[in-house]
């Protein structure tokens, strides 16, 4: 492409730049507009989701209040009393971080938990968020939260077949949360 051939179209660098800028202007206008409309809805939806997931962990609760001094901690309040703490926790799983939301009573009993994100093997490690594994953990205290591979041992948590690492990861994360809550409340 020789320079002379395109003189009439490339006579001004600025003109080309303005062409693109114009497009960006229009685009910015549209995006800004849409954002303006959806921003509030998005924030609201996000909040709703969070509440929903917490409600799933603690039944019959009145409201959730943020815990002062602890980021992302919530306490579930019923009849003016704190019945549980909802604590984020994480641990290393089979193939990356496993993130959990754990509901713990103030005396350090596991009420429920939910794995929010994980990279475990589908059909194997991800069963840590399902029964029957889940019910093994619920109701246990710190001393019971240890994975064993002995079917006769009912005190501790039985590893899922073929997914010992994932079992251990989930259990460890829950134990971590319990420990933190106990530390925070003093075990009462």
């Amino acid at each position, binding site marked *: 492409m020789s320079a002379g051939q395109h003189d009439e179209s490339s006579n001004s660098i600025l003109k080309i730049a303005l*062409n*693109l800028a114009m*497009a960006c202007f229009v685009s910015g206008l549209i995006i800004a507009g849409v954002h303006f409309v959806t921003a509030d809805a998005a924030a609201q*939806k*996000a909040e709703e989701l969070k509440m929903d997931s917490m409600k799933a962990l603690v039944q019959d609760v009145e409201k959730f209040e943020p815990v002062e001094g602890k980021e992302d901690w919530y306490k579930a309040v019923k009849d003016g009393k704190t019945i549980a703490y909802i604590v984020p926790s994480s641990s290393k799983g089979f193939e990356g971080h496993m993130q959990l939301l754990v509901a713990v009573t103030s005396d350090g009993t596991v009420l429920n938990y939910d794995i929010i994100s994980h990279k475990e093997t589908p059909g194997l490690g991800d069963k840590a968020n399902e029964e029957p594994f889940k019910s093994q953990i619920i109701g246990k205290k710190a001393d019971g939260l240890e994975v064993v591979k002995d079917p006769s041992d009912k005190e501790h948590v039985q590893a899922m077949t073929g997914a010992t690492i994932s079992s251990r990861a989930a259990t460890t994360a829950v134990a971590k949360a319990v420990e933190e809550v106990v530390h925070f409340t003093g075990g009462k």
Partner: protein
Amino acid sequence: MRELWSIFSKGILLENPIFVLALSLCPALAVTSSVMTSLTMGLTVLFVITANNVSISIVKNFVNPKVRLPVYIVSIATIVTVSQLVLQAYFPLLYKALGIYLALVVVFAIILARAEVFASKNNVVRSFCDGLGMGAGFAIAMVIIGGIREIFGSGTFLGINIMPASYDAPLILILPAGAFILIGYLIGGVKIIVQRIEKAKA
């Protein structure tokens, strides 16, 4: 009318973006482990490609050839961002499920290719039909892949159990390896069908 129909229909099978043109393969694998996400992605792309085709065919005459590519990209990116914002606001779970792939719609080759091949040379109506056809072809392909993977890989359809309880789903289908192999055979199958059709035509 007939012409418009042929423009529309070619995207569904004969020039199916995934099975025949083999463009935009990333989402065809990444988000097709369930029907719901496949459908959402399919519809999003359908929307983006149609909207983009329309907008490009409108502005095509005002664009300096030197910055044609960036302008097209801006156009696509705008539409994608809008879809992102809307999904985020009203369907946050789907938004989360699609993850990074939603943003990556921007760089799907099929969208830019249609803009360059078709929209930049045709009028609004024709471009609209083309976008609709291509988008529909894409969406259908996505749902087919998603359907097979979900039904046989998890025994559900749209999250509902449809296989007998004794069905022991092979998980490979919802894993990358299975997705690759499945699509490989689907491409082969569509090739046979397309060849049959073309033979019948000839």
